[in-house]
């Protein structure tokens, strides 16, 4: 009798142990399968989001060119179709940094906060926050609110870096080195269409003027080229240099500027009305926390250049092209109006005195200056983030779009 009991106890113990081992093993297998299935859902969602964002213009289709509210989210250029994104719709995205936070700029004279899409070179696209599409709205329109998070990173395909080359006396003319790189590789034999706008004093107390230089060059086997400007002094003359590189259907843009205003950017252009193309030209002391006294008065000269499909810049006359900006209350800002349906560059040269001048550029359409934009949430901390990558064109400039998606909640 006792032997049978011990036999039972041993057998039950062994059975339970075997069951536990089997259940643990199967649980691990099931957990792996569940994780795989969930991750695949996220990957599928990332592909869906990419298709919606890149291959749908949204609703209304021209929402990027108007102030109207958005009913469907998509960034495709409705006129071009395919993998072409609207240069305007992207400007209306409430941009975020790598942490998913927005960087806002407050302008006291309008009492508005402005969305800040920063170019690499210090220039910004500032749009009233009320005209922008925020992340929450986008997730609601995409039907993923509170279920999935996403982030879109739109970056130029070509990386174009520009630097000033030091020259030895007695030479003092300007030499710029342009380096074009693709995906980690230098891009040789690329055709460069360049424009240099030299800011000139204009004499006396008058408004500044610009002197334009343009030309075509080609990169060498190292993907770089030196461009010399014999009539421009390397340190005394402020200038703004823009170059468009192209090779066999891949196009990029680079920009470099040099000011003689002791590091103070004195003029800030804000987009006032997206629909009408009106732009505010403001004194920067009303925007930034500069402390210099007395506050300098500034005279500006604004010029708009339309960028055509051959990467040629064509000057267009605009109203209030010159003005005298004074800091503080009682001194209004100036407004000008751009041809809203044309992409291009608003080039504002400004003059503090005969020796201190500079310039600032407002790109109208993000491709015109190769501006990068990030929009969406922060994927940090999520176990699994699926990404999709596509090539797109934004007003002729090659970009890459990366969409990241992740599952929210458990």
């Amino acid at each position, binding site marked *: 009798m006792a032997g*049978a009991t011990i*036999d*039972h106890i*041993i*057998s*039950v113990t*062994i*059975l339970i142990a*075997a*069951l536990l081992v*089997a259940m643990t*093993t*199967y649980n691990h*297998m099931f957990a*792996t*399968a569940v*994780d*795989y299935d*969930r*991750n*695949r859902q*996220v*990957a599928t969602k*990332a*592909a869906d989001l*990419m298709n919606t964002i*890149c291959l749908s213009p949204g609703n209304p289709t021209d929402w990027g060119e108007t102030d109207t509210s958005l009913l469907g989210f998509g960034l495709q250029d409705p006129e*071009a179709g*395919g*993998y*072409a994104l609207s240069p305007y719709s992207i400007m209306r995205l409430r941009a975020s940094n790598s942490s998913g936070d927005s960087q806002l700029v407050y302008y006291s004279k309008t009492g508005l906060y402005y969305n800040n899409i920063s170019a690499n070179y210090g220039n910004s696209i500032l749009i009233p926050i009320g005209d922008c599409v925020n992340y929450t709205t986008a997730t609601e329109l995409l039907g993923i609110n509170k279920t999935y998070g996403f982030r879109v990173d739109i970056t130029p*395909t*070509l990386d174009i870096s520009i630097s000033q080359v030091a020259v030895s006396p007695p030479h003092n003319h300007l030499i710029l080195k342009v380096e074009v*790189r*693709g*995906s*980690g*590789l230098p*891009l*040789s*034999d690329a055709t460069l269409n360049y424009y240099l706008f030299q800011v000139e004093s204009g004499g006396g107390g008058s408004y500044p003027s610009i002197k334009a230089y343009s030309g075509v060059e080609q990169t060498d086997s190292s993907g770089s080229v030196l461009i010399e400007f014999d009539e421009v002094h390397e340190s005394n003359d402020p200038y703004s240099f823009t170059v468009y590189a192209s*090779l*066999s*259907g*891949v196009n990029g843009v680079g920009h470099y500027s040099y000011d003689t205003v002791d590091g103070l950017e004195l003029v800030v252009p804000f987009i006032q009305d997206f629909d009408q193309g009106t732009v505010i030209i403001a004194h920067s002391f009303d925007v930034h926390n500069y402390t210099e006294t007395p506050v300098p008065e500034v005279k500006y000269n604004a010029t708009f250049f339309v960028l055509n*499909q051959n990467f040629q810049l064509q000057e267009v006359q605009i109203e209030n092209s010159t003005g005298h900006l004074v800091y503080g209350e009682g001194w209004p800002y100036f407004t000008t109006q751009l041809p809203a349906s044309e992409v291009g560059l608003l080039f504002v040269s400004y003059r503090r005195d005969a020796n201190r001048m500079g310039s600032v550029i407002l790109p109208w359409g993000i491709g015109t200056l190769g501006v990068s934009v990030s929009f969406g949430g922060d994927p940090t901390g999520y176990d*699994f983030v*699926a*990404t*999709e*990558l*596509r*090539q*797109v*064109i934004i007003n*002729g400039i*090659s970009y*890459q779009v990366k969409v990241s998606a992740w599952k929210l909640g458990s």
Partner: protein
Amino acid sequence: MRTVEVLFVIVILLGAFVITTQFAVLPSPSQAFGTNLRELSQSTLETLDAQGTLSETVFKDTSDPAWGDLQKAISASLPPNVVYNLSVYDLSADSQGVITYQLANSISDAGFGADSDASSLMLTSPNVTFTQDPQKVGESTGQPITLYILNCSDANGWWITGYTGQSLASDLYGLLSPYFTTTVLINTTDQLGLLLENSTSLEGTIQNAVVVNTFGESVPIPDDYCDGGSHDDEGFDPSHDVDGTYAKYFHTLGSLTRQYNWTWVSIVGYPFYYVTNTEYFVSDQNTYGIYGMEDVRTAGVNAFLQGLDGASYSYDETGTASGVGVVQLTSEALELCNYYGVYPAPYQTSSRALTQSIESNYHLDRFATVFELKSGRIAGATFRHQDGSGALTAIGLTRIPDIRVAALALLMYYRPTIYRSEFGASGTSRLVTLQLGQQGGT
């Protein structure tokens, strides 16, 4: 003893586990996705050709430096861990139209691992212009046919919800005018009177013409054919219905269709159900609040068919059309949708399909059947009199109208040839495939 049994159980459990793990090989959760290489490849090809650069390059000689530039451009576009192979195939067609693909050139930067995918893009030479010229209807017989579209400003439509007769006339003009030597818009009911009287003041040739009524179930009627008009004996029948009926007008239309060998087209709904003239029927409405028209109801189509048959007028209220629900395009219609590039929805709802018995009653032959017959009824077809004089194209669908169905029905009936440039001609088209492979981890 129990221990032995348990050991058996354990062996069975372990055996089940081993067998399960043999068959259920689950991938790691991190392998749930890789880079979507096919879409990346497609977007790369499309963006490279956005300004026609790729099209220019792939038609150049293989020794041209443009190929080297293309190689650099692709390398610059793709992520460093993605390798590629771009192959270009020349298309050529033999005398029997069989297209063959021959490799013209190929460029790549490395060999592929296991993970690769590809997409393709058909490119046409920038030096070639592809054209598409339709043959004009009647051109092959030496008797070009005129298309008359009723666009009367003094008429109202019914069963064309969402449109006006004028807007449909405009759409139809765009769809069909390339197929006709002469297309004439009939802009008033007075002009319609000229058409009915075979007036030489109208442009085009009235004999053998196609007349399209874009007003749906209502048909414009000139003043002269209304009660009290100079031709009211050809338009108004005072002895039937409560206060007389305009069924006789439709008999006249049927007779003229026979006399002039017209093809009369009813684009939607119950044919010949109302007459419309906004100036004459100012205070008359169709019981649905649409003024400027008077109902003839079911007697209208019967009177028209009597006229088409050469029979004398006899008031007949027999219902000739009714609903059959969802109908689908015939295989012939689907094939010709592709040929003419007209793509209405293949499934439509028919609420006014004509009964098949009209074919025997009025000596009609049916041609160009647009929809499969259902319950002995015909939702869309052209009925030509067996004498060869006159035809009626009737589309018995419900509203909202799709004018493309009427256009398709006419094209099916007349079958104009379309002369297209040959895409398969050697040197005009090339197929580009871009295969991408991923090296290293995802």
